[in-house]
């Protein structure tokens, strides 16, 4: 099987300036992530996991170096172009779900589709499909406050997949869930990876969660120190 590279980081450096101090997160980081990978990124706090996720998702830019996703360089895109790019290419899953409390589950899932030219009925079809995939179609009309943590995270996953992006970025997606629910969510991510071919990059502190990924990278002080294949 030929593995196609979806993401390429080429000599990526990321520095923050705080007062007089310059904090270096990455120094000349070069790496590639294959299309269809399910990658877990582990590491201590402050190691740069979330910064890496931000750079890969186009919500932060490197200080230098290039980031190419699906053959498109995103490090030099304008803010507006990045917004459009994210809407079309990336699904985000957050630790605390980040659902809109005033909207129903279906309305939350519909949000990314509002950025497309799809009509109302086509949007409704896509929402229904996404909710079915995550097994929560019967809660479509419920608001987040009426759902359990696991159900809310399923809605968030449905929102992440509804516009069919190739890349999904998850930051501690099970960090706020009990073990049983966490396993259900991780199995779902596995399903999305294996059955639907989604490339998933998941940041986690939890080695149990990382076991669901096809590959785990350990990040420490901006460098990958060891790679564990499962």
């Amino acid at each position, binding site marked *: 099987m030929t593995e196609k590279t979806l993401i390429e980081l080429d000599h990526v450096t990321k520095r923050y300036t705080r007062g007089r101090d310059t904090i270096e997160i990455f120094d000349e980081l070069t790496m590639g992530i294959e299309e269809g990978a399910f990658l877990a990124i582990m590491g201590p706090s402050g190691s740069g996991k*979330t910064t890496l*996720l*931000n750079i890969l*998702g186009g*919500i*932060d830019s490197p200080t230098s170096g290039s980031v190419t996703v699906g053959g498109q360089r995103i490090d030099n895109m304008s*803010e*507006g172009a990045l*917004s*459009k790019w*994210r*809407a*079309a290419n990336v699904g*985000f899953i*957050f*630790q*605390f779900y*980040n659902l*809109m*409390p*005033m*909207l129903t589950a279906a309305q939350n899932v519909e*949000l*990314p589709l*509002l*950025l*497309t*030219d799809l009509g109302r009925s086509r949007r409704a079809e896509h929402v229904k499909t996404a909710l079915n995939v995550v097994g929560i179609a019967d809660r479509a009309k419920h608001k987040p406050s009426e759902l359990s943590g696991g159900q809310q995270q399923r809605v968030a996953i449905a*929102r992440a997949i509804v516009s069919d992006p190739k890349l999904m970025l998850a*930051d501690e997606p099970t960090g706020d869930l009990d073990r049983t629910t966490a396993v259900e969510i991780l199995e779902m991510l596995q399903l999305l990876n294996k059955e639907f071919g989604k490339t998933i990059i998941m940041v986690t502190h939890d080695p149990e969660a990382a076991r669901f990924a096809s590959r785990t990278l350990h990040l420490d002080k901006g460098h990958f120190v060891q790679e564990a294949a499962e």
Partner: protein
Amino acid sequence: MAIWNETVAVTAMTVKSLPQRIWVAIVTLIAIAIVVTVMMAVLAMAAGFDKTVAGAGGVDTAIIMRAGSQAELNSGLSSEQINLLAEAPGIVRVGNQPQASPELYVIVDGIKKSTGLSVNLPLRGMNPIGVELRKDVVISEGRMFETGKNELVVGRAARQQFAGFDPGSTVQFGKTTWQVVGIFEAGGSVFESELWADAKVVQSLYNRGNSYQSVRALLDGPDAIQKIEAYAGNDPRLNISVQTEADYFSQLSKPLVSFINGVGYPLAIVMALGALAGALNAMYTSVAARQREIVTLRAIGFGGFSTFVGIMVEALVLAFAGTLLGVMVTYIFFDGLTASTLGQTFTQIVFDFSVTPELVVQAGVLALAIGLIGGFFPALRAARLPVVDAFRNV
């Protein structure tokens, strides 16, 4: 299409989330409503006074007084001058009768019902033509005074505000006794604050001899004032000033209206600054409370523009609701509220507060400005929130 959907969705989310911040929203709304109410109430007083006084005069009626007189009270015209004016050009005649009314303007005592205090009231001596020259005058109760008798007709507003003027009652002004025989209405104008009687009786009872204080005359065309002035200019005995009633009353109302407006607008602006601080606080609170929602939307691809519009709409919704509440309160509690004040003639002028469409527009513009400025900076902050915060527990 997509940008429209995006903007509508963010705006709807913003408005739907208002109940989560209901108390801050209510405080802002009330602050705006108070600004609107105070501004409108003060200006409704000016508008009402202006409508009552400046609206009393017609452009086709002249008021002739002694040159240099600012008001009828300090004017004086002799019988010789009155006779000369009867021959003046520019005045409409029916047969040989000039449509003119030589009049007296005397101050009498009255008691204000609301305070029980003694106040000055205007008693006007006039002839039947004088009544006809005033448009919209109708006797609403009783009858008109008869010539040669100590009879009064009382303006609607004067009867309402001052004691003892019901038809059939007898009133005493100094040593003179009068019978109230009727009530008249004059379209809500300043004349409704007056008491009217036969000019000859007033002359006699107040020892005015044959003198008068002013002449009302119906003009025969747009250049009639010039004709009368030219006529008077050729006769040194006619040391008079001629102006239309409209100009006269406009000048009478101007000082007080300017004063009220001069107080009203700065007061409204100072209060608006307070409300603006409240609106800014409310909107910054709104942005802070919704920070996670905003950055999440930005992360999944929503633009800064829709976020900006959403916050602006929230501010404008609050401003609009505040305006609506303020207008309703002003309309219910102030529109038509009757008050009286001392006019330029040192007599009481009764007037109604008047909430005009112009005032509603002015208050709306002020509230809109509060909403726009109060929303703009928080909206800008919301649109510029760093998207990298999406993965942080904000």
